């Protein structure tokens, strides 16, 4: 092999490695569908998605994952309501207001928070937060929507805050200087110039934070309580999709209808998070911050 051919060969070899991520994505789809699709030979897709009863071990079983979907959406929504203001404001603080030293410390704190394993946060919610909630509000159980949402919010904050911070940081200096030159206060500059200019990045951050919350498993498995019913209050237990999969997969016989239903739930979860990620990707590319051309 002469030198030119060798170089070309190496280039394509690396292309192959670069395609591994896409290949793995394909294999994920392949595995989920291979194990999950057979369910729909016996259970209609509509009944699966919109059925209100998840009784996988009854005779006859009932595989309706609507309560699980509702559980996932509700904890994600509340976690978003908590984590978005905290995460974005913390990002504003880090990038615009904090003195250099505090900035460094806060960035490390957020990075360590991101590094905490999910099972540790789930354990914290279960052993520390749940008993406290139960006593303070005199509830039948502390393992409920509000507890799971708060812990999920803690998990989503690092994602939201670090990506927002990058977006704020990328706003050109001239924008700020122009705003100050017009006599705007620092707050007015942040609220009317910097944040709007970074809005696409902040939206991406929020979408990715939500995707993280909706797919998070250990926290909802340990803290959400596990009741597969449509909740009526914030203190009710729910059984989000990841919790259902993780809790039941160990006990179900190989390739039973229940097993297939759990893989099918995995397909729904996968599609949902994929949608969030693709939207985030679209937003960040469509409204890309390109220096002074943004406004």
């Amino acid at each position, binding site marked *: 092999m002469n030198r030119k051919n060798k170089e070309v060969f190496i280039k394509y070899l690396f292309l192959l490695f*670069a395609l591994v991520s896409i290949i793995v994505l394909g294999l994920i789809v392949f595995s989920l569908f291979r194990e999950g699709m057979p369910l729909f030979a016996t259970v209609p897709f509509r009944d699966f998605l919109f059925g209100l009863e998840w009784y996988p071990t009854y005779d006859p079983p009932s595989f309706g994952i609507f309560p699980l979907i509702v559980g996932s959406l509700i904890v994600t929504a509340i976690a978003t309501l908590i984590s978005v203001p905290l995460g974005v404001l913390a990002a504003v603080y880090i990038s615009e207001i904090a003195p250099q030293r505090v900035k460094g410390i806060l960035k490390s704190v957020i990075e360590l928070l991101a590094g905490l394993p999910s099972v540790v946060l789930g354990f914290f919610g279960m052993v520390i937060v749940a008993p406290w909630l139960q006593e303070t509000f005199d509830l039948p159980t502390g393992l409920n929507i509000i507890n799971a949402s708060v812990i999920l919010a803690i998990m989503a904050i690092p994602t939201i805050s670090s990506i927002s911070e990058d977006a704020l940081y990328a706003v050109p200096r001239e924008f700020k200087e122009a705003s100050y030159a017009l006599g705007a206060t620092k707050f007015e500059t942040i609220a009317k110039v910097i944040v709007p200019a970074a809005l696409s990045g902040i939206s991406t951050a929020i979408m990715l934070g939500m995707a993280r919350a909706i797919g998070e498993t250990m926290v909802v498995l340990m803290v959400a309580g596990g009741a597969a019913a449509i909740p009526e209050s914030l203190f009710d237990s729910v059984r989000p999709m990841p919790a259902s999969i993780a809790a039941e997969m160990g006990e179900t016989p190989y390739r039973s209808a229940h097993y297939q239903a759990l893989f099918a739930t995995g397909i729904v979860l996968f599609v949902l998070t994929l949608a969030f990620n693709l939207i985030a990707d679209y937003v960040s590319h469509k409204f890309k911050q390109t220096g002074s051309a943004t406004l």
Partner: protein
Amino acid sequence: MNTNGMAGARLMRWRYLKQTIFFTLVRASALLIVLALGGILFHIFYHGLSAINWEFITRPPTHSMTKGGILPAILGTIYLTVGAVAVGLPLGIASAIYLTEYAKQGRVIRLIKVGINCLAGVPSVVFGLFGLGFFVIFLGFGSSILSGSLTLGFLILPTIIGAAEEALKSVPQTFREASLSLGVSKWQTIYRIVLPNALPGILTGSILGIGRAAGETAPIMFTAAAYFTAKLPGSVFDEVMALPYHIYVLATAGTNIEATRPIQFGTVLVLVAVVLGIDLVAIVIRGYMRRNKRW
């Protein structure tokens, strides 16, 4: 004229009052995040430290896991993490080399990047299902260190690609030009010049992914983790105990959940120490490298 002046002063005061309120909110958000991390760590250390002694980390569990240590779980986590790195690191570096050194901006690179982002967003429990459906069943590896390491390796792949890309990009273009102008081939330039200069950055960036592999639970639940194994694993086809799974099992399904609380807290503390220790090393080294940058 005079009234105008007074109105103006009032307006100014109002504008600065808004700013003060906003700054207070922003600082409160940042403080709340610090307190969240502090509170979690405090509880873990406060309850966990008393459980930890030499026996605890060097002995296997005894009496149906209500007494004794967690040695098999510590070793299992080490095996799985090393395995995940052995899978994820070479693939991640190779992907990043293609993306930064070979690819031209265009459709292929855009497609690969979207793929990487989507892979990064796949929920951990879906990775678990993928590992079960593909490695455990389709390839027939069974529930084993091999299946678990492969699953975790692909889970951390996006993190490592991101870190490696960042590090490769930070190697100055002049290094490459100098080498190429001496008649050195592209591959040799990458291998001898770019990669050695980028390696410290790649490794520190990857450490964050490594910490994640050590702490994940859902991906190993169906692919590698054993509830209890009396003997230490002898081959890559053996099941292992692992710290995160051990915590989950003891906290939710142990023989005596309340009585084993100290062991649970102790295990949580060991896991947090391992994961945050790994992260902290990365953060410190990165800070040091930034201060002592040679170019």
